[in-house]
Structures are given as structure tokens and as C-alpha cells.
């Protein structure tokens, strides 16, 4: 595994672990999701640059557009949660209980 490949893989996995082990705020989970999307963008761009496959350069552009859509949907959910439950804390989302 080249160092660059190792770095972007570990960036993605660290973001995923940050999303899984989130603590208080819903917003910090959304920020970890954004970090995963950023690692994916850099990975796709480096893929097309290192393989000299310039036709693959459209993939990171479209991925960025769709990740902006996903971020806006996540933030809309955050706003709706804050308006319904009063806070953005994860403990407030306790309606479904085992």
C-alpha cells in the first residue's frame, strides 16, 4: 500500500469511527460524515491523477455535488430536530426505546 493510499484510507476509516462513536451532538456526527466525503473526494481525484485516466475526473465533481445535497439534507434534519426537541443533543432522540 503506498503512503498516499494508506493516508486516504485511514482518513476515511477514522471519519467512520468518529461517526460510529459520536458523543453528544448530532452536528459532530454530521461533520464526521463530511470528513468521510472529503476523504472520498481526495481518493477519487488521486485515482484519476495517478493513473493518468483523465476521463475519471468527472467522478469527484459529481460526488462533490451529491455530497452537498446530502449535507443539506442532514442539516435540514438537524434543524428539524432542534425545533422539535429543543436541543441538538443525541440524548433528546429517545422516543424509540427498547
Amino acid at each position, binding site marked *: 500500500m503506498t503512503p498516499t493510499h494508506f493516508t486516504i484510507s485511514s482518513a476515511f476509516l*477514522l*471519519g467512520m469511527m468518529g461517526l460510529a*462513536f459520536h458523543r*453528544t451532538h448530532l452536528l*459532530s456526527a454530521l461533520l464526521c460524515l463530511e470528513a468521510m466525503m472529503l476523504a472520498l473526494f481526495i481518493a477519487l*481525484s488521486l485515482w484519476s491523477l*495517478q493513473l493518468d485516466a483523465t476521463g475519471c475526473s468527472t467522478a469527484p*465533481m459529481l460526488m462533490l455535488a451529491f455530497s452537498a445535497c446530502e*449535507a443539506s439534507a442532514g442539516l435540514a434534519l438537524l*434543524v428539524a430536530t432542534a425545533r422539535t426537541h429543543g436541543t441538538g443533543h443525541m440524548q433528546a432522540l429517545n422516543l424509540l426505546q427498547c
Partner: protein
Amino acid sequence: MAYIMLTLLIGMVLGVISVASNPSPYFAALGLVLVAGVGCVVLMGHGGSFLSLVLFLIYLGGMLVVFAYCVALAAEPYPEAWGEWSVLGSVLGYLLLVVGAGSWFWGGWYEGMWVPVDELIEFSVVAADSGGVALMYSLGGGLLVVSAWVLLLTLLVVLELTRGLARGALRAV
């Protein structure tokens, strides 16, 4: 040049650790800005200056500004930075994980592996990544139209989610 790339890649991993350790959202957004900036320079080091520009403009200038406005919703009197023990424990754990996984691989890393080799097969007027992105408008025009409809759909989704009042389970208090 290899040292510059080493520093940038380490900076990227440290930035993602600073986001993944879940401090208060103010500091997580700062860490994300660091990761995006360093990632842009990594892309430029590999020759992708247009993609780096797009990342800076759209990601930092568009998405993270919106996130910064939403961080105002998470205002708290005592925000936890990375000095707080609960966050510092996560930082040290992730650092240990990355160093441990890296020690698996760094036996096979040599000097030349850190930087790309610029292979000039031929001379060209258009840079590689700019020419590739232009394909999105010519051969990939169909996907572009579909993406435009997806973006419109997302706008309607967001407006419906934040409508509030009496519709749906999410309503204004």
C-alpha cells in the same frame, strides 16, 4: 518534495483525527477546514490544480460556510476542545490506531513512493484534470441533466423537512 508530501499527509491524518475525536462542533469544523486545505495541497502536488480549486470553492466556500452557520445552533457555555480528557482519550486512541496500522506497512515504503512521477508522454494545451471535467458537459451531458433534477429534488426534500407546523412528525414546538 517527499518531505513536503510526508508533512501534508501527516497533516491530513491529524486533521481527520481532530474531527473524529468529537470535540465541540466549533473545533470539529476547524479541523475539517484544516483537512480540506491540506487535501487541496496534496491534490496540487499530484498535478490536479483544477480539482483542488473546485474543492476549495465548493467545499470550503459553500458547504462549510453553511455548516458554520449551523454550528451556531450548537452554542454551549463550556465548549470541549481537545484538552478535555474525554476528547483527548479519543485523540490518543486514534493516533495509536493509525501508527499501529502504519507500522504494518512502513517496511515496504521507500523514498520514491511519496511523490508522483510526472510522465510527459506528450505535450498538451489543456491540463489533465480540466480536460477530464469538460467531459462532464460533452459526453456526460445526460448524467449532468439527471444531476440537475437530483439537486432540484434535494431542494424540495429540504424544504419539506423544515416546513414544520402541523405536517409530519417533525414540527415546530
